[in-house]
């Protein structure tokens, strides 16, 4: 234990005296997220600004526009109306993502099975948000086109009735109804699958928490998670992985400088060297977690009472990550190889485990994989702590696994370091 303590103190002192490299790696993930937020602008989830220039003003154009008022799309796309001059002026100032123009006669063309045209003008200064509108539109236009093909006959009857400009006879209404219901009945089994029920778990607890808990209830799971909240747990874990990698490479620096061999020549041999360096890594990471979470407290309104449990949980889990990366690094035959090998482990974990892209933003298949990665598991538990959702059995399991695996990797790394660096 004596050597472990000495190595731990020595490493902390070294990194305190020369912290630039570590701080840079710790801050890079935070900087990336802040830049993304700055690029999207505003607070909360980034939204596209869409301006309608509706020169047709018919039921058909209204129906297409209504699609953008659906709850989920409306979260991503904000819409306003304007004439074409004002719309282009706003777009020119960069205050809109897209202008959509429905020309006069659009509905007539649609009902007459001609090819109606919609003009979509994108803001060239933006990439992602106009693309969201474009994609949404392409789906919508495809849907409308299929409706035109499938319900060609009833649409034709409807066009004739509109032309009559009088109350339609019952027989015509019956004909339109049949024309629509018959194909729907035939295709119903494929087009209209059974309604999927959504079961919300833990709603009762949240409700009771809300009635009893005042301030904490506001941040409970019912709260909308904004852009930064979505990214923040991943930022912490990305910092952890990057910093753990930099710390691990220090084994090769110790070898190159002869300090590892000199320590092994001491009275305690290599008894506490690897454990000391691993624990120093845990202490450094815990300090980084605390700093980032305190920054997060001001930026994201994370409650103070959640910060200490989050730091303790992350600190304990980081033991497993640091020990595993240390082992990988001493497994390599050269320092360059160590960097490559550890990057091959760290980068996929960062990408898949929700540290770079939030799991919530991933396709279901990737998300399922991401949730099973070590940082994905820890990240999900961290969200529960940060957003007042309480401890779960999984949290205890991840902690125990991190500590047990960490101890195992320390044991392996000690043997491997001795074999690799002094050939013993």
């Amino acid at each position, binding site marked *: 234990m*004596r*050597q472990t303590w*000495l190595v731990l*103190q*020595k490493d902390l*002192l*070294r990194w305190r*005296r*020369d912290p630039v490299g570590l701080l840079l790696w710790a801050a890079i993930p935070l900087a990336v997220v802040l830049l993304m937020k700055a690029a999207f602008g505003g607070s909360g989830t980034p939204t596209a600004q869409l301006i309608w220039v509706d020169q047709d003003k018919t039921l058909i154009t209204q129906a297409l526009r209504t699609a953008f008022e659906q709850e989920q799309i409306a979260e991503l796309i904000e819409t306003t109306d304007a004439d074409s001059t004002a719309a282009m002026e706003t777009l020119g100032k960069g205050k809109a993502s897209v202008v959509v123009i429905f020309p006069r006669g659009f509905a007539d063309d649609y009902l007459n099975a001609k090819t109606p045209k919609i003009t979509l003008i994108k803001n060239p200064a933006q990439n992602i948000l106009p693309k969201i509108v474009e994609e949404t539109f392409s789906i919508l236009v495809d849907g409308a086109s299929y409706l035109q093909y499938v319900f060609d006959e009833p649409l034709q009857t409807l066009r004739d009735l509109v032309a009559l400009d009088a109350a339609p006879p019952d027989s015509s209404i019956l004909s339109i109804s049949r024309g629509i219901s018959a194909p729907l009945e035939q295709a119903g089994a494929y087009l209209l699958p059974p309604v999927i029920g959504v079961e919300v778990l833990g709603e009762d607890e949240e409700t009771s928490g809300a009635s009893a808990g005042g301030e904490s209830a506001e941040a409970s799971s019912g709260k909308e998670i904004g852009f930064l909240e979505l990214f923040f747990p991943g930022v912490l874990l990305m910092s952890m992985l990057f910093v753990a990698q930099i710390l691990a490479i220090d084994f090769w620096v110790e070898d190159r*400088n*002869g*300090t590892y*061999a*000199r*320590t*092994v*020549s*001491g*009275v*305690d*041999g290599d008894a506490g060297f690897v454990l000391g360096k691993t624990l120093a890594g845990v202490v450094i990471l815990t300090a980084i977690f605390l700093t980032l979470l305190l920054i997060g407290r001001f930026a994201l309104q994370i409650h103070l009472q959640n910060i200490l449990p989050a730091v303790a949980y992350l600190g304990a889990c980081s033991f497993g990550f640091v020990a595993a990366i240390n082992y990988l690094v001493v497994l390599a035959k050269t320092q360059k190889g160590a960097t490559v090998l550890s990057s091959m482990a760290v980068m996929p974990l960062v990408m898949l485990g929700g540290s770079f892209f939030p799991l919530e933003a991933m396709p279901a298949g990737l998300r399922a994989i991401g949730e099973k990665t070590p940082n994905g598991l820890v990240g999900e538990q961290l969200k529960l702590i940060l957003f007042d959702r309480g401890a779960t059995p999984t949290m205890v399991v991840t902690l125990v696994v991190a500590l047990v695996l960490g101890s195992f990797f320390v044991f392996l790394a000690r043997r491997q370091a001795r074999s690799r660096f*002094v*050939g*013993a």
Partner: protein
Amino acid sequence: MIEVEGLRKVYGDRVAVDGISFRVEPGQVFGLLGPNGAGKTTTISCLSGLIRATSGAVRLNGIDVAADPKRAKANLGVVPQELAMYPEISARENLAFWGGVQGLDRGELSTKIPRMLERVGLADRAKEPVKNFSGGMKRRLNLAIGLIHDPKVVLMDEPTVGVDPQSRVHILDLIRDRAKAGTSIVYTTHYMDEAEGLCDPFLILDQGKVIANGGLEELLEQAGNVIERASIPQPSLERLFIHLTGKDLRE
């Protein structure tokens, strides 16, 4: 005292050290010489317990290194060829860490560190990060780290490589002082003039085998006939060394 008997170290099918034996009495500076790849560093590594010998025995002050490494190494100081220290922290902090690694407690460190810094001429730079030191200052600190716990046995692997003449004189004086105080020292170097002025006796290794062993006079006397036949003028350790190990370049 250092006792080495039949020390042999094999890596795969390569014999790095082939059954060498020698003994270093207290107060002796033992010159372990040889060209690159002769087996000097492997021998030092076996003596320091860093690597385990394939066969043979090493005893430091009568304690077997393989059987009781902790006790054997308590009185061992190592000055490696590399500047094995931490450049980010100060000379004082380096000495505190390495002293701790050698088992010194806080009280012992508080008295030994200032004394050692004074002895190697670094007292006025004690709090400065080592990365700001010159090569000579780092060499002196490297030596100080190996001697901080007043070991009875010291292994020095080329401790004066690349230093300025002043630092070299300083380092050699310190080594002589240690020897006078009764420390057993094993010293390796490629500077034959340095070895000739400092060491006695010598052991010359080549390809893991002992090719000469004894005091300078003894070696020159043993080789006298050979040297005479080879018409070597003014016999010296360097001429003898070149004669014994050849002029071929080594890796």
